[in-house]
């Protein structure tokens, strides 16, 4: 009887631990905070820090993009909130936008963030109703970031200086 109990506990423990390892390798958290946040999200208890999110939004509108991203990262340490990830991607877009070119490194990071936002949103569609933005959906932002990284003859078009930042 005692052996059967030990066996049953052992089987349950092995399966749980294995599931945890598979989850870790699938989500690839970057630090302990992300592991904790991921576990909270799995349990449905994850929430972002709203105060920090609002502070980051203020910084974003003042074009302090790096500071805004730091605040958003602190508000969403587990990178589990689709809306926050969308704003982070948007900040990369705006910081990397120039009249004649788009910064590739920033666009790449923006693309990673917007992909996370799309993955996190239900049905893979995310709409952010913010009058301060000109792109309201994640797919729109993604397309814009990808366009900025593409190389084409149009890059030499002098009329590009007349385009506007979204």
């Amino acid at each position, binding site marked *: 009887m*005692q*052996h*059967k109990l*030990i*066996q*049953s*506990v*052992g*089987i349950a*423990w*092995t*399966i749980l*631990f*294995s599931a*945890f*390892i598979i989850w*870790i*390798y699938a989500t*690839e*958290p*970057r*630090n302990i905070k992300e592991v904790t946040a991921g576990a909270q999200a799995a349990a449905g208890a994850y929430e972002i820090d709203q105060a920090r999110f609002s502070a980051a939004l203020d910084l974003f509108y003042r074009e302090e993009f790096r500071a805004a991203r730091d605040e958003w990262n602190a508000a969403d340490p587990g990178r589990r909130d689709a809306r926050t990830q969308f704003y982070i991607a948007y900040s990369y877009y705006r910081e990397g936008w120039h009249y004649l070119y788009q910064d590739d490194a920033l666009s790449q990071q923006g693309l990673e963030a917007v992909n996370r936002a799309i993955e996190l949103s239900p049905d893979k569609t995310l709409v952010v109703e913010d009058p301060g933005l000109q792109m309201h959906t994640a797919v729109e932002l993604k397309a814009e970031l990808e366009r900025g990284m593409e190389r084409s003859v149009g890059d030499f078009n002098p009329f590009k200086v007349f385009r506007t930042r979204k």
Partner: protein
Amino acid sequence: MTANTRSRNRALVRYILLPMIFLTVALLGGLRIDVETKAFLFYPPPLITLIFSVMVMLLFVRGRAVEIRAWLGSDLPALTNVSHALTLVTLYFATAQAFNTVLPERGLLKALFCFFFAWTLWNNYFSKFDVRSLLLSMAVLFGTAFFLKHMFLASLFAPGGGWAKKIAGFFLEVGTLGTIDSQTFAPATGYISFFTLLLYVAGLVLLTPRPEPEEDARALVRSYRDLPPLEQMAVREAIAGPQPSAALEAREPQKRLDTVEVTGELVTDMPSEETLVTRKPDA
């Protein structure tokens, strides 16, 4: 310690401690720490490590470190079979991740390490092994690979360091036409890898060939049959003990004595105490 307590402790080791050790190895085997951001990087086991793990499992079975019929069998209860199968599966993935932790991530070095691992395992497959030698061989194999990757190569390609190291690294890279492309990680990666390998070896030491130990006499007979003929003879002589003294005396070689005929004749004039010995006349 009573038999009941001993049996319970064995069950705890087999069903809980061993899977926990092997799964921890599976978790930490692919973990690296980024040198700049100190972020976790997870490397799932490459295909080659899964193949190496199959080779090692075959070695374990061949070297009787794992007696598969004793672990899994139709005469065992279903729950026991499931539990044993899970333990063996965790051993398989732990072995794959133990290889993963000492294998360079890319480039020529990865290919070289893979070649030498495959060579060693293939050679081992044709060697005569007992359990102890097999475990020792595994520990030495992983220890050597750990030293090469996390101590020698890591120090050679570390971002800081003196001129001598930089020059050696430069010539190594130029000499191999840039095919050596070692990825640098934070020093914590070496510590994690060391701990992982230590756990893996501890798990192997705790892993018994059979889930329940055999009775002493049967285990002795089984071990005797595994020995080469010469050692079997030595065991037989040792068990038989020293021979009785009577038997030893009987085996002493007989001394052969030449018989000499002695004759004499009585002389009356001479004193009676003296005896003259003369040669017997030829017939």
